């Protein structure tokens, strides 16, 4: 993987800002931390929430930090439950324009379910970081261009 910044082609001068979140009681943070580091090395600005966050805390952090993407790492099976609640809460706080992506130990049959709930992308274990980076850039660029501010 190239760890050089990959954002030079971005239309905006601002770095893409990602909130890497651990929600609930799941302590598996290896993936979250590896992704946080990899995104940082790829030129993103990364905020990591730390463990055992509530959905409320994550939404508030996303709004306060003005992030472009929320990335939720989940390894303990509650991903559908958490995705529903998170998207609901974003709507409630008027922040539904912040795209949500997820990654972790997620059965493939749940990927469509998550997407139907409103999760933009789901990354399974073994996904090359390069692919994650490219997808996140595309998602952020779409958001920048639709925002037009």
């Amino acid at each position, binding site marked *: 993987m190239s760890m050089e910044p990959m954002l030079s082609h971005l239309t905006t001068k601002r770095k893409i800002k990602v909130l890497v979140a651990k929600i609930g009681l799941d302590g598996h943070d290896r993936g979250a931390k590896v992704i946080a580091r990899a995104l940082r090395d790829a030129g993103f600005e990364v905020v990591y929430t730390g463990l055992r966050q509530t959905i409320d805390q994550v939404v508030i952090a996303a709004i306060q930090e003005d992030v472009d993407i929320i990335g939720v790492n989940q390894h303990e099976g509650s991903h559908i439950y*958490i995705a529903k609640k998170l998207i609901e809460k974003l709507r409630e706080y008027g922040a539904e324009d912040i795209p949500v992506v997820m990654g972790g130990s997620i059965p493939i049959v749940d990927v469509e379910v998550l997407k139907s709930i409103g999760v933009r992308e789901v990354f399974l*274990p073994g996904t090359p970081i390069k692919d994650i980076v490219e997808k996140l850039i595309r998602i952020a660029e779409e958001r920048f261009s639709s925002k037009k501010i």
Partner: protein
Amino acid sequence: MAKLYSREALEEILKAYKYWEENILPQWLSRMPERQKEFTTLSGIQLKPFYTPADLSDFDYIEKLGVPGAYPFTRGIHATMYRARLWTMRMFSGYGGPEETNERLKMLIKAGETGLSLAFDNPTLVGIDPDDPLAEGAVGVVGVSVPTVVDMEIVFRDINMGEVTTNMTINPPAPVLLSFYVAVAEKQGVSYDNIGGTTQNDPLKEFIGQKTHVFPPEAAVKVAMDVIEWSVKNLPKWNPISISGYHIREAGATAVQELAFTLADGIEYVRQLIARGLDVDDFAPRLSFFFDSHINFFEEIAKFRAARRMWAKIMKEWFGAKKPRSWWMRFHVQTAGCSLYPQQPWLNIVRTAIEALAAVLGGCQSLHTNSFDEPFRVPSEFAAKIALRTQQIIAYETGVADVIDPLAGSYFVEWLTDEMEERAWRYIERIERMGGMLEAVKKGYPQREVEEAAYRFQREVEEGKRFIVGVNIFREEDVEEIRRVPLLEFNQEEVERRQKERVRKIRSMRDEVRWRNALEELRRAAERGDNIMPYVLKAVKAYATIGEIMGVLKDVYGTYVEPPYY
């Protein structure tokens, strides 16, 4: 002195090696260059093309290996090893409520597993009740929900607790779950002398891996030592701690780090117990260990052998333990969950078999083999059975269990065992200079090391320096195969509803005064700094829930919040 090779022999061998290097190898390399620029283990240890006695020039057989069942136990802790008794086949199991898990345990016993091992759900692991708002959506998901003694009783319905041994992967609430277990065993009529099993109860590794920590480091260690002290005095067959490298490894550590940090954790606990006034020979035989078995075959075998030798030395020479049993490192192994991938999922069966073989060649006392559906969900019955049968094939078909420590004497394996040991000692020395593992953990040192290693591994995979079949080589874009994996299905919402209802019912039916007094006594004992175990047991018998007991302890000891760095 039992040096294996004479100076003359070594000179001859070196000469032959040099000849190979200068005259034979270059011709071959010019026609057939090596596949890779360098060959390294997962810990980054560089490997030579082949090994000779010259790599073991000072090798003293008696000092390094000896015989099985005798110091330094490199060849195994028992004189008979698997020729007398196979390792315990202990499948880590649990999902849903106690009813579902009881069924799963009975299925596994019927299928021939020889020990039980309970996986708890996240609310239980961090000691909250199923109706706690933080437990929402997580009840029964990654393990069984056991918030009260009543739930434990259901888990063991129709299972004689005097005839099985049970491992419980539980850490901050270990006093609570052990008390549930003891109370139910007592009710079944099993005497304390016959209650056998293990509580993981290893707080330091919680801060490095696993991360189901609740109390701050000092208090977490104090509570764990309470469990050990009480068990050593009351439950002669119980292993009150399983000093675990597994989660450290799964969090990204190398094999060397896993080895070093686990031993450093063990050293810290021995010191803590001695500081309480316990005699090392009274508790050392009850300490047990737990390692990962990853995919880099020889490195894992070398790690297991080095671990036994190092621990024997630590107990005998550092702590002056006198009983040979105090020098034993008894360990459980689990194959590496983090080595399994969703892509081409059936391949996980093969990976697990190879890892299990390494554990057996490394002389483990018990073994859990992961199911191939590990990357997706808690195992289905089908997948769990294949995993158990994998062990049975190794045990009964391959013949690898017929000779003790069969790889001993391999120039490569002995060299690698020495190398692992030496590298691990260097880490341990560094941790000693920091004031021991409790201090090192408070400073975030092992945490940092593990995170760096996790990231390094990921980069190596991405850069094509490490290969994973189906992931970065021999990929298939067809995801239909993944879809065909039959996953465990159960109604989680129903389980959660049932568990909430039960805990509420228990709260409403118990003797209020007895319950309140038990919790109050527990609080006072914790405040005084007494051993909390007798008080937790009393509270459990008064039907206090895990959340209530842990709530009292959190009030007294505080709660740990990990700083959000990466």
